[in-house]
């Protein structure tokens, strides 16, 4: 049961993800350089946050051409898990592995602060330790987290229960005020139809120690561990 944390040039949450998996959860984990294409030994791949290639063009638009991205469809087909956090989510969108696209935050500024998200689907590899409707407190840190998709795409996401997290207030209500960046339907995280590839904007790896202000991110990492154990 091996975790792999992908390192793109410009990734900057790779070390934080590795720290949580290795030092907090005591799970085997390695870095995977973005040019590596051998993924057989891994069971879960983390695409971390950061600014791959500086995000100078469009977030994730260059990283999606990295050799490792070509290997992800086969990895998913084998029923293994992939989680893209922040820039990782943006790369998955650019690669077409998740539907939709990111726009700039509606206030056109980078936003770094704690938010609340509500678990919309607890029957996933990433949320099996949560209840439906559970509220998690996690930080966001991004310029482009304003998720968008056409009506038909949104309908499909909802029908297939692919929306895993929505921004909410501390009471769990989905309101416009609790939507930090203008994202459609308060969407904070979605998964593929098969349910083994997640993209999430908030940072679970920044909220996995009480010392840092929240341990709610552990729900996600521990859910993955539990799911992998059972697999």
């Amino acid at each position, binding site marked *: 049961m091996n975790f792999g944390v992908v390192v793109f040039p410009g990734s900057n*949450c790779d070390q934080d993800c590795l720290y949580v998996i290795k030092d907090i959860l005591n799970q085997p984990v390695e870095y995977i350089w973005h040019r590596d294409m051998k993924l057989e030994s891994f069971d879960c791949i983390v695409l971390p946050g950061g*600014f791959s*290639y500086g995000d100078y063009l469009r977030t994730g638009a260059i990283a999606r051409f990295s050799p490792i991205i070509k290997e992800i469809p086969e990895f998913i087909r084998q029923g293994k898990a992939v989680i893209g956090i922040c820039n990782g989510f943006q790369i998955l969108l650019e690669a077409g592995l998740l539907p939709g696209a990111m726009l700039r935050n509606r206030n056109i500024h*980078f*936003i770094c602060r704690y938010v609340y998200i509500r678990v919309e689907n607890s029957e996933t590899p990433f949320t099996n330790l949560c209840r439906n409707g559970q509220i998690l407190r996690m930080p966001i*840190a991004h310029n482009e987290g304003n998720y968008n998709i056409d009506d038909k795409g949104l309908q499909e996401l909802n029908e297939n229960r692919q929306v895993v997290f929505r921004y909410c207030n501390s009471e769990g209500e989905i309101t416009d005020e609790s939507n930090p960046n203008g994202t459609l339907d308060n969407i904070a995280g979605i998964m593929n139809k098969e349910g083994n590839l997640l993209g999430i904007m908030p940072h679970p790896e920044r909220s996995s120690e009480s010392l840092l202000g929240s341990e709610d991110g552990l729900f996600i990492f521990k859910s993955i561990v539990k799911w992998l154990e059972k697999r």
Partner: protein
Amino acid sequence: MVKPEIYRSLGLTDNEYQRILDILNRDPTATELAMFSVEWSEHCGYPRSRNWLKLLPRTGKYETFLGEDAGGIIVDNLAIVFKIESHNHPSQVEPKQGAGTGVGGIIRDIFTTGARPIALLDSLRFGPLKKSFNRYIARGVVDGIQFYGNCVGVPTVGGEAYFDECYSGNCLVNVMCIGIANKEELLGARFSGVGSSIIYVGARTGRDGIGGCSVLASQELGEDEEKRPNVQIGDPFTEKCLIEATLEAAATRNMAGIKDMGAAGLTCATSEMASAGGSGAEIELRLVPRREAGMEPWEVMMSESQERMLLCVREGKEEEIERIFKKWDLGAQAIGKVTGDGIVRIRDNGKIVAEIEAQALTKAPVYDMHHKKPEYLEKVNKLDIKKLPEPKDYNRVLLRLLASPSISSKKTIYEQYDHMVQTNTITLPGSDSAVLRIKGTSIAIAATTDCNSRYCYLNPYRGAQIAVAEAARNLVCSGAEPVALTDCLNLGNPEKPDRFFQFKSCVEGIADACKFLNLAVISGNVSFYNESPRGAIYPTPVIGMVGIIDDFKKVCTQYFKGEGHTVILLGLCKEELGGSEYLKEIHRIVGGNSPEMHLQLEQGVQLTALEVIRKGLAYSAHDCSEGGLAVALAECCISDRENMLGANIDKLNSGIRPDALLFGESQSRIILSCKEDSVTEIRNIARKNNAPFQVVGHTGGKRLRIWAGEKELINLPLGKQFERWANSLESLISN
């Protein structure tokens, strides 16, 4: 013979030119003249300040080390490296790129010591935001910091922002970076080992930034001058790759030295590395990677293109090091060799274009500058507070002060910065200082920047002492023992004797405060010529200080934590209003003398608070600063938005004017909160340290009430205070 117009246009004086002739025994080449002009500029060579900087103590409570580009302290096996640097003129000329490259430059100074950068702090000063140009500058600077800092993956965890008329026309952007390394892995900025290779890595060289350090940083800013071409352009993505590649290369132990090509670019890197290593160097300019064709040799030597570094690699290990940089898609090109003759020899296609003794080039002349007490001092220091009317409505005064841009919440700025990446930030922005745990140890470090420049304007010596004392107090309030600092001395034109008096007095103030409080000055930066046609800025000696918390579980924050806790004030409330925000905002007066500073009292208060926090007796601790006691109490109540908590302060010793009691800025005061049972023990600790102690009230409710004797002066709901304090800056800056 070089014409005077030419060397003068490069910023060299007649005497300096004569000295160059003496060193070389011949006329300088164009390249040599350019090299001398940048190396001897104030920015690189410190000819006007060096004599005075010797006053600063370099040792303190912990072992220190003073590197070429940054310094630090050693705690067990850990080196904590830090430095602050200014990027004022570039930011005034082109705010986004100026500030962004300021961030990039200081980060390079840290990781070239072999340390991983773990935190940034920004000390910013702008003109009043009611002027649209100042808003443009402020917004651009914040944008530049977020653009660069967020991408490069170093959290921006703290800093300060002040607004004053004196910064209209000359903003200040001072950036501090902190890094950590294993002490055995520290690298120097030196050439050593004859035959070692000199390898150029990073971005290519262009014409950007030529003369940045000499023409832009070492002269006053003119009214309508077009200096934008002197500002560099930042590329944080390349910088991020450089950090990773450099640290990977450093781990091989095959690099003998490394230096950023920042101010004065290749000239500075070659000559200073040769000089520091007691070596010489021979370089072929044809090999320098270019992004522009047809550059003259002197342009290549002067360019300040960003994200470039020079390595000294042991013979035979070149390929190993080059492979690491190439993995990160970074260019690595050997451009020369270390020699043993002490000469920096620059060739262009084989032809020698410069040949100068490294020591002579890096030893800038030292000037004994004239100084004279400024005439304004006597006039502004005169203030008879008896003639000031007392406010009728204290609630209104408090609300106005909470909305003053210098006091109000800086959330609209710091939420644009990633302050959590690297997952070390225990105390997020908004408390007295930022706190970062060090992974793999039980310790944390606290960091802050501080300077009230109005105090320095009214009394340069005392103002600088206060900057040191208050920075230390901020750290103490987090539970940290202050240990060392870096200073960024922002002043006017040193050639004017009254300005130089301010500089000299500030240095003396810092030196004396540091000696008394046993703090080491481990690095620093001098930024002169902060003048526009509107005049000079207030002297602004920014102090960036680091403290150690032995056990990261014992961190304290400024917010009240629960109902019914006892509120304690350490220190004395004196009848002094000079230099206060109250005097400026309410009475429109910048005058009087700055608050008194008794280092003995300061130390007693700090030792008390530190012991109380370390023993786990305090729930909160907050320094009293701008806006005085009333503002500090309000901040204890409202600055943790989700857990606001009121207080009834009904036991204050009065006996002085109520406005001085509430809004005076007497130094050496800390507000603590604790449970009832701890009061006696805290009183005893205060007595032992000779720190004045009083219980002033209790927490609870949804209002802040403050009494002077029988008279209730403040009675305000928390929501109203929060609304003024939290939203004022955002609405002003985004207008």
